[in-house]
């Protein structure tokens, strides 16, 4: 009996070991991807700051109206939801999708129509299953995101906004707080409510060519694509961090299991030896 049990235990140790190898590898891959994603997120900062500052300057220095700042008559809301392309990242996908669903239901309860654009395979699958109107989906772009992708999405959003398909745009994504915490966040994007901040100068002598309105409106695609780019990169960094943590604890669990199983195996082996010894000893006693 003991031999059969030992074989089983040995097989289990082997299978746990190979799982551990996979989780360990995924952990390493995730941490190197995380490093790159963090660098990209950092590199995008000055661009966004420059666009934002200019828009803030325009809105502070001039009285003007733009369709992007108009008072909203809220009928339809577009939610842009950013989630991951793959699973095995702990609570990353379920956390963000739960928040998105909650917000969407809140809008519905208030009598607004909800339309969606989804970035990441998991978000697409989730909302398609739940009978939401998904205008466009962008699966698999986060990892090798380039500016053209985010500009394309931004232009899509803006064109539909101008046509009046929706009068409010909100973004739901995960922001990277630290390697251990990632927070799902919700960010209204359009209409541009209030432009605060800016660089603190008083009335500037800035000449806007051809006019402040046109400069402001012309910057909107850059602004939206900047926000999208930053959010997608941020979300990707969060995904990697979540996966790294999940895989780290999976590897730890595997280690623990291996330790327990080895103990069991060694006990069974020792038990077998003891038994054999007793058998030999008792056999020799009888002979005497």
């Amino acid at each position, binding site marked *: 009996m003991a031999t059969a049990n030992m074989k089983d235990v040995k097989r289990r140790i082997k299978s746990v070991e190979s799982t551990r190898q996979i989780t360990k590898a995924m952990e390493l891959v995730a941490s190197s991807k995380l490093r790159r994603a963090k660098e990209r997120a950092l590199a995008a900062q000055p661009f966004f700051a420059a666009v934002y500052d*200019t828009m803030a300057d325009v809105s502070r220095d001039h009285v003007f109206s733009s369709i992007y700042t108009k008072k909203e008559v809220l009928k339809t809301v577009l939610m842009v939801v950013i989630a991951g392309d793959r699973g095995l990242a702990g609570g990353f996908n379920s956390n963000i999708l739960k928040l998105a669903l909650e917000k969407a239901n809140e809008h519905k309860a208030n009598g607004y129509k909800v339309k969606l654009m989804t970035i990441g395979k998991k978000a697409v699958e989730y909302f398609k299953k739940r009978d939401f109107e998904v205008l466009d989906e962008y699966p698999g772009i986060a990892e090798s995101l380039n500016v*053209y992708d985010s500009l394309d999405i931004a232009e899509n959003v803006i*064109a539909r906004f101008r*046509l009046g398909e929706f009068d409010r745009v909100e973004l739901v994504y995960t922001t990277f707080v630290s390697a251990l915490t990632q927070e799902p966040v919700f960010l209204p994007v359009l209409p541009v409510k209030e432009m605060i901040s800016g660089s603190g100068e008083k009335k500037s002598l800035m000449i806007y*060519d051809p006019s402040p309105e046109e400069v402001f409106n*012309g910057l909107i695609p*850059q602004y939206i694509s900047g926000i999208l780019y930053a959010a997608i990169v941020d979300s990707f960094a969060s995904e990697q961090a979540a996966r790294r943590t999940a895989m780290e604890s999976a590897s730890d669990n595997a280690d623990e299991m291996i330790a327990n199983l080895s103990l069991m195996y060694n006990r069974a082996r020792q038990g077998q030896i003891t038994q054999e010894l007793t058998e030999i000893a008792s056999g020799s006693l009888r002979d005497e």
Partner: protein
Amino acid sequence: MTPFKLKIITPEKTFFDGETQQLIARTTAGNVGILAGHTPYAANLTASPLKVMQEDGSFRVAAVSAGMVKVRANECVVVASAIEWADEIDIERAKRSKEDAERRLKAQASQKEFERAEHKLKRALNRLTVSGGM
């Protein structure tokens, strides 16, 4: 000519950070040349070639997709969603996106699709013109 500070920023990186004597850009209102001591100025750029004067007086040309040029306190900042030096443009890729845009234009889709395809075509054509791949 007096040099002035020029910075070109994209979402991916700081593309250029240095000095130049003259910058020629195409805004929505027409071409502008910027020299040292320019008055504070802001304008949007269209998909066009952007010319940066080098030390020997010749221009280095880059294809800019869309963006903004801003002058303030003798410092010029160009913010571009995408920009590539003429010699670094991937001509094959530009040709592919041109063909893709043309196909979409022919598809006679909605107004929105049409506008997006038009933008894309403009960007692709600009890249091809600047790189001399036409």
